Structure formats: C-alpha cells, structure tokens
C-alpha cells in the first residue's frame, strides 16, 4: 500500500516535471504574429489590380486599376496610389492613401471630371477600405501587442499545414476601434502568411471571411510574400469583394514623389 502511494507520487512528480517542458515546445504566438504582421510588407510594389464587388444577387461591379505602393520609414504604414483604368466613366480617377496605423489614414482623390484633388477623410479603421468588404484595419494589419492569442489547433488547409490562432482584443477600445470581438486566422507554418481569416463583429456574431490564395514569394531576399487573389465575403450582407493582382513586381525603386497630390493630377 505504502509502495503504491510512493509510486503514484513518483508518477505525479514525473508528470509535473514533464508539463513545463511540453509547454516550452509550443510556438511563441506573439513571435508568430509579429512575423505575420510584416511578411507582406514590401519595400515597394507596382501591380495591376482588378476589384470585383459582388452583391447578394450576384451582380458585379468591376474596376481595373494600376497601383503602386511604398513602405514608409516606420516599416508599418504604406503609401498607396491607385489609378482607375476602367470602367470608362471613372478612368483617370486617382486615389492616394497614406496609411497611419495610429490615426485616421489620409486619402486624397483626383476626379478628372472636376479636375481637382480633394481630400477625403475616412472615419476609422473599421470602416470599409475604398468601398470593399475589407476594412482599413484588415489591409494594414493589427498591432500585435493589442491582442491576446490562443492556438486553437493545427490543421492543413489547401495542402498547407497551418496554425489556427484566435485573437481577441485586450481592451474595449481595441475592440470598438477594430469592430471585431474576435479574429481567427489560419497561418501557413512555412511562411506565416495568413491564408484564411474569420471575423466576428462586436456582438460576437460571424461577420466575414477573408481568404488569401495564389500566395507567391515576391522578395526572396527579405522573405516577403503576397497573395495574388484576395477575397472578403460578408456573411451578414451577402456582399463579396475579390481583388486580383497581376504583374505584381517589388523593389522597383518607386519614388516618393509618386505619392504627392501634385503627381495625381498628371495624366
């Protein structure tokens, strides 16, 4: 009897010792999220993009654009210039977006019919990114230290082993600024690119699903990756947005003066 008690405590002791070491084997989620945050931040890029907005009834609005981007010195915010090529009645419209992770982004828009550059003020991060189902926040990414993470499981999606990580806001401010009570991301283990993400609104209801496919390495030296097809679908409204990139090139030495209002007015 006494022997039994001893052996049980010996087993418990062994287990107790074993547990912390198992814990240590678990990936550091904060580190993963930090890498995930920067994996698609290129120095600069040029690309053709097609924006397809699809409503509940399957009707489409298609806009073709030519875009350039350049990462600012802080390594977080991008400057993006988008020139509309079609449909014909908006051809020549140019938008300039200067991201600010900490405050409202600056947007300027040039309307050829008005022949004027006007400033557009977007209200906050949770609003729609240029009328798509992505929000400004979705495009820039979320500050890693403002969210708590939990590894839900690991699973394979489209042949890629992924971490399934749940992120919840650390404060109500973060929650109301982002508009999300929860995000669940599927991150590829090999490059930490998000290939799928589920979002839940502030009330905790499923809001939308984002998928990122045709993931390509665009800068091998810096380890930068880009999804060539992005899709956001709002499960509450039935509205969808598909963004397709073509001729995506990085490190093109894009000049800063590209991102000025003066430059926008040039044809």
């Amino acid at each position, binding site marked *: 009897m006494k022997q039994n008690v001893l052996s049980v405590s010996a087993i418990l002791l062994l287990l107790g010792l074993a547990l912390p070491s198992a814990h240590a084997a678990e990936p550091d989620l904060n580190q993963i999220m930090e890498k995930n945050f920067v994996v698609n931040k290129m120095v600069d890029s040029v690309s053709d993009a097609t924006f397809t907005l699809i409503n509940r009834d399957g009707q489409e609005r298609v806009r073709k654009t030519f875009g350039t981007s350049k990462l600012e010195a802080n390594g977080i915010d991008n400057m993006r210039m988008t020139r509309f090529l079609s449909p014909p009645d908006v051809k020549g419209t140019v938008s300039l977006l200067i991201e600010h992770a900490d405050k409202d982004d600056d947007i300027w828009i040039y309307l*050829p019919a008005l022949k004027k550059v006007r400033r557009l003020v977007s209200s906050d991060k949770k609003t729609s990114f240029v009328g798509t189902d992505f929000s400004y926040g979705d495009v820039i990414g979320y500050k890693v230290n403002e969210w708590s993470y939990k590894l839900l499981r690991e699973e394979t999606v489209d042949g890629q082993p992924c971490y399934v990580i749940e992120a919840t806001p650390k404060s109500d401010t973060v929650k109301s600024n982002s508009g999300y009570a929860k995000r669940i991301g599927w991150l590829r283990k090999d490059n930490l690119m998000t290939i799928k993400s589920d979002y839940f609104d502030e009330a905790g209801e499923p809001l939308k699903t984002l998928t990122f496919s045709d993931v390509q390495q665009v800068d091998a030296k810096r380890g930068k990756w880009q999804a060539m097809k992005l899709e956001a679908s709002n499960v509450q409204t039935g509205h969808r947005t598909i963004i397709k990139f073509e001729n995506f090139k990085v490190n093109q030495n894009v000049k800063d003066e590209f991102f000025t209002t003066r430059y926008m007015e040039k044809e």
Partner: protein
Amino acid sequence: MKRYIEWIIRHRYAVIALTLLATVLAVSQARNLKVIIDPNTMLPQSHPYVSTTDLVEKTFGSKYVVVVGITPKQGDIFQPIVLSKVQRITVALLKAKGVLPENMLSLSARRAKDIIGTAEGMEVRQLMPSVPANETQMQALRAALKRNPAYLNAIVSKDAATAAIIAEFKDIPGGFRAIQDQVDAIVAHERDYNVEIMVGGLPTYLSRLEIYSERMAFLLPISILVLGLVLFEAFRTRQGMFLPLATAILAVAWGLGVMGAFGIPMDVFNATTPILILAVATGHAVQMLKRYYEEYYLLRKTNDMTPKEANDLAVVNSLIHVGPVMITAGMVAALGFFSLMVFEISTVRTFGVFTGVGILAAMMLEMTFIPALRSVLKPPSDADTRREHSVHIWDRVTGKIAEWVTGPKRKRVYIGAAIFVAVALAGMSQVIVNNTTKSYFSYDQPFQRDDRALNARLGGANTLYVLVEGANDDAIKNPAVLQAMDELQHQLEQRPEIGKTVSLADFIKRMNQAMHGDDAAYYKIPESQELISQYLLLYSMSGEPGDFDSYVDYGYRMANMTVFMKTDSTAYTEQVIAEVNAFAATHFPAGVKVRFGGLAEAVALNETMVHGKILNIAQIAAVVFVISSLVFRSLAAGALVLLPLLLTVLANFGLMGWSGIYLNISTSLTSAMAVGIGADYAIYLIFRLREELDKGVEELTAVRNVITTAGKAVLFVAIAVAAGYGVLLTSSGFNLHKWLSILIGVAMIISALSALLLIPALILSFRPNFIFRRKS
C-alpha cells in the same frame, strides 16, 4: 320522389349515422385546409404594381416598413436619454427576425452618413457612431443633421421634436404578427415617462387586422345563437331552432371538408364566406321546416292520424313539395357560384367553390339527414301546435304585405320601389372606391393615435416606391434622369400628404455641394455624367459597400425613389401615381420608365378585388338569369328571379354611398355575398304560387297563402340572419365587423322585402304566361 323519401325514413338510423360519419370525415379533412395569409399569393402576379413590388423587394430589399417614433415629453431629441433610446432600439431591431440590416435607417444606423464639405475636400462619417456625451458633441450632431437634409423628416422631424427608426422587414413565418410582436417587445423596454413612443407602418395595421379578425371565433357562435333564438321565436319550437342550425353548420363543415380534401386553399378574404353559406342553408332549411309544420297541422286537423303517423307523412309531403323547389333554387345558386372558377384570382375561385359546395351540402342534408332525423324526433305536441298558431308579429307583417300586394295599394308598392331604386342609385353614384387599412379600425384605437402622431410629426409612415428604370446599365447616372428625379421629388413634396421623398438624387446633390466646399449654390445635380460616376466612386470609397443599395441597383440601371406618405388611401395613391406618370411622360429622357411598388400594391389589390367582385356579381346574376329562364322556360321568370337579387345589390351599394362606407376589399366581398341570397326567395315564392294555383285556389287568395306560408319562412330567415349578424356590431373598435353586420343585415331585409312585395305584385300586374298559362 315519394318512394325515395319513404326509403330514407325506413333507413333513417343508417342515414343519420352516415351523415355523422361524413361530418367527422369532413372535419378531419378540414384540418388539412391550407390557409393562406399572404395577400401576395392572392394577387394576379401579372399586375404591373405587383411585379414591380416584387422587383423592388428583390433589388432593393424593401418590403414591409415599420416606423418607430420617439418624442420626448420635454425638449427636443438632442438629449442623451432620447438618443440612447434610438441607439438601443436600432441595435435591438437589427437582431430582429426578418429585418434587413443593411436597410435599417436611424440616427445610429451605420448607413446614416454625415457628408461634410471642407475647404480641401470631403468627409463622410457615420452620423452618430455613439451617443453624444457632451454639449460639444451634441452641437456637432445638430450641425451634421442640418447639412444633410436627406435625413430630415425621415429619421428626425423638422422641428427636432421626434426621432424615428425605420426598419424594413421581409416575409417571415408567423406573418405580420410575428414582425409586430418583436417590435412591440423591443419598444416596450424603452417606454417611460420621459418619452412617447409610437409604432407605425403596414405590419402594425395588418397584424391588428389578423388579431381583430380572430374575434370571429367567439362572435360567430354568438351570432348563430342569436339566429337560433330568432328562429325559436318564429317557430316557437326547439326543433325550429335546432334543425335549421344543424343544416347550416353541417353545410359549412362539409364545405370546409371538401376544400381540405381537394387542396383548395382558404384565405383571409374568405373568412366571411361561411356567413353566406349559413344564410343560404338556413333559408332552405326554414322553408322545409315551415312546410313540414304546415303539413303536420293540416294532417292532424283533417285526419285521425296518430302524431307519429302524421309526422312521417308530413315529412314525406313537405319533401315532395319543397324538395324539387329547393333543388332548383340550390342548383341555380350553386351553378352561379361554381361559374366563378373561371376567374384568375385564387381567392375568387375559392369563394365560388366554397359557397357552391356549401349550398350543395345544405341541399343534400335537407334531402337525407333532416327528414331522417325528423322521423326519429318526437312530433310536435299539441302545445307546440297552439303556440305556432297564435298570431305573432310575423303574421301581422306578412298580413300587411299580402294586403298591399293584393289590394288597391299595389301601386304604392311600385312607387315605394321606384323611390327606393332612385335613392339607392343616387347613393351608388357617390360610392367611393378606396381602401385604407386605417378605416378598418375606429378612430380612437391607441395604434391609430400612434399612427396619426407619427404622420403628423414625420414624413409619413406609409411608403410608395417609384422605380425609375433605364434601358441599360448606367442609365441612372445620366444627369437628365437625376435632374428629373429631383424635380419630381420637389413636385411631390408639395402635396400635403407627402412628407418626404428620398432618392439617389439627394445624395448626388449633397456630394456635389460638399466637393465644392459646402457652397449652397452647388446643391444640385452636376451636368456631367462622368462627374456623377466619379462622385459615386468617391462615395463608395468613403462609405460601406451597401450604403446606396436601397437607392440604386448594382448596374445603375434602376433607381428606387421612396415616397413617404401620411395616408395609405388607395384613392390618394392612385392620384399620386397619375401625377408621377404624367410627369415622367414629359420630363424623363426617352427609354426611361417609371413603375410603382409598395403602397401601389394595395392599389392593385383593391383594384383587382373590387373590379373582380363586381364582375363576380354580374356573372352570378347572369347565370341565375339564364338558368331561371331555362327552368321556367320564360325570360320573364328569369327577370323576376333576378329582381330581388339586383335590388339587394343596389341597396348595398346605395347604403355604402349614402353612409360613406368605402367600396373596398372587404365591403366588395359583402356585396358579392348579397347576390347569393336573393334568388332563392323568388324561386320559393314562384313555385309555391304555381302550386296553389294548380290546386285551383283563386289567385288573390293564392297570393295571400304564398305570402303567409313560404313568404313567412322568407321573413323568418331574413330577420334571423340579420339579427344574428347584428351581434358583430358589438365588435368594438373594428369597423370591418360593423360594416359586415350592417351590410349583411340590409341585404337580408331588402332581399326578403323585395321578394315578398314585388314578385307577387308584378305577377298580379303583368300576369306572365309561366304562371297563368302553363301547358300542363
């Protein structure tokens, strides 16, 4: 005939058992009855207003609009206590079943945007992302509303005394009541002494209509009870009360059973049809019963039979004499109603089948079950006989009628009839075809008060959709189209009953102004289509993807203009539609069409129902005329049978004209019922007169006999049914039941009086061949 009846009497227990079995079967089948509540399924889907409403719903989501208004008892809406109520109600409604979240509109709705013009450009922000916490934020909200007039009178009243939440719902199981219950529950939390909260819109009214109509469940039994009591007073026997009611109730049950078995849908518009079946079935049953008593008393007086022998023989005799008449009258009416099968509208077909089957059922019961039952029942006692024979008010009335018709005062009958026709025609010319759900309820109902308050304070709780449709995509971006829409809105808003209009034009104007530094001179549609396109792109880049979804379709081919109206009157809506059509013909570019939905659907429903019902009346009248003419082989007979029927319908319309009751969906149904009542009486009277004359009775005496026998039965039925439906007058606050009560009552009395007075009078005056010179 005689052998058949004797056979029935011999197998009376089997007949009774079979009848009860058939009834159980019918009731079990009636449980399969499909009940349709959605008026859409009853509309001809080809009607342009109906298809447009469907299109508006499919493209823009809008279907049923609920408006919740909040008026603080003190001050304006710019108080945290009021605005937080707006926010909470909005949030709660967003979670309601069937609500269209993207179409939600209120100060705190996401798509309610503040467009701000600045020196360097434009800002688009949510109007009220959170309730203003301090005076500065409150002032900012005031300023935001001031510069965005699109929201004025829609979600905030012009004097800022009332705020509104406009929610749009689609159809959900449980119908309008399911919508209304959710809204009521949400609003109940927010009612307190600080504010007055009003709920309005179509679901409010239609849910009340459902609830109030359910009173029929207890009013109908009381009606039947009263009907029975009047019959008891007339016959002075318990059988006189129960037997006609048994026929009537079983006929309704059989009718429902047949419909259930054949999968013919029942709908709300046929909820009153049992009343007609009840009236017709009682009519036949009372004729039969009256004749039975006559025969029985005659046998007892002239023979030495035992009561039991006299009873069985009286059953046989009454059936021999009345049976063929009843079958004739029943077939005429049933064929008239079955002829409605040719109609496109399902509710009319149901009306025809249901009534036709009910009449056939009543005939079958009177030919089988009732004689069998009566031969089982105890024959009338001597006390019954004495009571039946004492002189009552009925005898005095029929005596008077007989005196007028046969005496020198007959001319006065014609003069009276002529005056009646003239008065009725004059009234008929004043009938207003108009449907407004509000008129169904009395003025002082709490929800009526709510509705009036909402309509007085805001743009209006009823919505008409004007769909502007171009030939191809981007048609709406054409400045000429937007300009015309803007002018049309301006013109419509001059009408006192139109408090607000909203369309894409409002937002384009506002953007144009904002992009020009908020200069009021630019609050107009720009002249360049490119600029309009670029504004739309611009807005789409600053707003949410769905912000304009309720104003313009995805391809910019169709625009939806919402017209908020303070009334749901179909007559008024028709005027507005006519005005818009006239405007569109001259102001919109070629290829751009306007169509109507929303309230216009009520116009379509009313138009279809009223016209449909009038056609029904004409068709049934024609069938009755043709068949009666064939039966009597005389056009004069056809005309004579038709006469009380026409006078009844005339009386109905005349009464509506003089009393100001609208000819609407519900009253047109009642008029169509009136047509089914009159013909029977004429047929009974004509047959009885021929029978008396065949016996060799002198003609004036024969007429007198007819009036005091079959005529008295007619009077019994008419008064009993009228009194029965008089019960509906007690349905407080619900005009629909009161109209039904009055119109049915008048129909019964006029059809009886016109049959009793005019048919004998005309026969005596014109001496038609089919009465006096028959080839035997």
